[in-house]
């Protein structure tokens, strides 16, 4: 009896030793040497795998950082400066302070409802609608309003506004750029948040000639160039009947805003013109209000 038990123990013990040796040899032979820094960097990253950095995910970004040894040309937008500083510490290099950015929808919502020429009842997808027709208000460049950007956002930072044009929640937006990529008409752009979150931009991407653009939308940029003339910083360029404000040069003086004949240029984050200060509750003024209140509403939310 004891004899049998002994044999079993010996056989199993011998097998165990044998496997241990095999596993040890295999482990030594196929050893993957990975920099432990990668794990540490990956730990610091937000882990949203948004792809905003241009890499496949956060792990790939960490690998790229460690492989490069410094942070030149690499930036995690959702993490922002805090995360970048931590990675810099880990890698032992200096990190440039990046200007925080935010997604900006360059299309005027106020006019779509009024000038609606057709009703779209096809597939709710901008990518598809873009191949079928121009859009409900007839603008071949503007927002289609099917919400591909809303679906693309992983941070719940962009929502369909009451006028059928998406509204960005600036507090939640991490500037990963997923919405800008999802937009088939490139209406959404990443721009610097600006000092005190004040920014000025041309809220139109229509490249049609002035008269044609005006027919489709009263707030279209007609490429008249008045803004470019008045700009003290030479931040504004006009090409293809469309003006563009370079956010790196813009000092948010708002001269162009008052000059624009079609009110295509929007200013965001400035205190309201009258008595009231800027941050006021959003819920109360509803969508039926006309132009100025709508603009204010966007100001606060953006």
């Amino acid at each position, binding site marked *: 009896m004891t004899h049998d038990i002994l044999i079993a123990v010996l056989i199993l013990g011998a097998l165990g030793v044998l496997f241990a040796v095999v596993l040890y040899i295999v482990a030594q032979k196929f050893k993957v040497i990975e920099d432990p820094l990668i794990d540490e960097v990956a730990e610091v990253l937000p882990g949203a795998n948004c792809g905003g950095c241009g890499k496949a995910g956060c792990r790939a970004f960490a690998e790229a950082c460690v492989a490069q040894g410094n942070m030149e040309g690499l930036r995690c937008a959702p993490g922002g400066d805090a995360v970048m500083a931590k990675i810099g510490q880990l890698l032992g290099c200096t990190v440039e302070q990046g200007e925080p950015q935010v997604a900006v929808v360059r299309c005027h919502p106020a006019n779509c409802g009024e000038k609606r*020429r*057709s009703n779209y*009842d*096809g*597939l709710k*997808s901008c*990518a*598809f609608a873009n*191949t*079928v*027709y*121009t*859009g409900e208000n*007839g603008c*071949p460049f503007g927002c289609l309003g099917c919400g591909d950007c809303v679906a693309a956002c992983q941070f719940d930072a962009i929502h369909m506004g009451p006028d059928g044009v998406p509204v960005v929640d600036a507090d939640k937006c991490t500037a990963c750029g997923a919405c800008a990529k999802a937009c088939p008409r490139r209406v959404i752009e990443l721009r610097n948040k600006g000092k005190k979150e004040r920014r000025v931009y041309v809220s139109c991407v229509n490249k*049609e000639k002035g008269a044609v653009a005006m027919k489709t939308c009263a707030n279209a940029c007609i490429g008249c160039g008045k803004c470019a003339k008045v700009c003290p910083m030479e931040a504004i360029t006009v090409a293809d009947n469309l003006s563009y404000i370079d956010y790196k040069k813009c000092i948010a003086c708002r001269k162009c805003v008052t000059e624009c004949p079609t009110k295509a240029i929007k200013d965001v984050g400035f205190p309201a013109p009258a008595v009231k200060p800027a941050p006021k509750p959003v819920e109360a003024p509803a969508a039926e209000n006309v132009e100025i209140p709508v603009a204010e509403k966007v100001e606060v939310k953006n």
Partner: protein
Amino acid sequence: MKTFRMGGVHPEENKISNDAAIEVMPVGKQMVVLMNQHLGAPATPIVQKGDKVKVGQLIGEAQTFMCANVHSPVSGTVLKVEPCKDAFGLAKPAVYINVEGDEWMETIDRTPDIKRECTLEPKEIVAKLKEMGIVGLGGATFPAHIKYSIPEGKTAEYLIINAAECEPYLTSDYRVMMEHAEEVCIGVSILRKALGVPNAYIGIESNKPLAIKKMQETAKEFEGIIIEPLKVKYPQGAEKQLINAVTGRRVGSGKLPIDSGCVVSNLGTAFAVYEAIQKNKPLIENILTVTGKELPSQHNYIVRIGTTYNEIIAHSIGQLPETTGKVISGGTMMGKAVVNLDAPTVKGNSSVLVIGEKEAHRNPETACIRCGKCANACPMGLEPYLFSLLVKNNRVEEAKEHNILDCIECGCCFFSCPANKPLTDEIRLGKNKVRAMMAAKK
């Protein structure tokens, strides 16, 4: 009776404009001729502001391979050459012509006599098709000279003429058969000669018994034209389905009809070919149906290209009824809703359908119940429900592996879906994504 093997649906036929004889639409005051009225690159305008043009004069030249000539549909002065918004609101290069009189090119034979003999050699026929800007009038507007130049190493055995007119509402091909049977048969003979095939088959759905009878009687006088009555089933007139119905052959995945030895043309194209070859008349006119259940009258018109939708509507029915939901160019199954009624008509437009609100309304989409009706209805043997999921989840590679590019966008899946899922739209989006992916890989 012959039919294609897989799938198919039976939409309401609604051929209510069957008995309306073809009328001639008067020419408007100004015509806008778009430069891409065909599949491929736009033609290059060769006229300038202030030039005088005559009816049938070349104004847009085909300078690339996949392109077709465009001719002036009217006589007058060129007002400007600049982009114009087409039926879907997209700006396309165009020539604006102020109409003055109705002066035709001297080369065009406008006598009503029917000319039977064609002495041209096959190569000359193809060259003339190119010169006259003939494109396929079945909807895809594929340049005819490319279709009839058979690539080396391939031989055509069958010429099939699609007169199935399986789309609901459309009756333009039916009217052409009833009124111009002889011309059509001459056109078919010319195409047969161009290809050098022994027989041409004209497939007609059996819901047009009068047309079948008329064509059979006329075809007796011609050599090698066989009338093939087909079962009523949508999409009987689709290229690959028609080949399957008439010859029993199947066109493989990603292959062209010529790979199976077949060339398919529309009946309207055959008529245009007759006019181009025998009468020297370029493709400057469309035969189109103006119809709708809520319209006071139904019409079939012969319309110069460049006439706007609004002009057609104003001339035929005065104005759109208040209950109009959609104006569709093409049939109800594959046609597209027109967004811009100020847009000019182009080659290949076969109808102006005015659909009432109730009929045009899309029911709200509900969840897929996995009934498989779409897969049953698909005439290409595909699985639309699967594409819907793959496209939604951006699994483009897999969609390609399941042959999403074979979809002919006939709309059978959407038509048969009890959950009202816009399957055809989703597949179109998927096809675009697959093509973009393939282009990026190159």
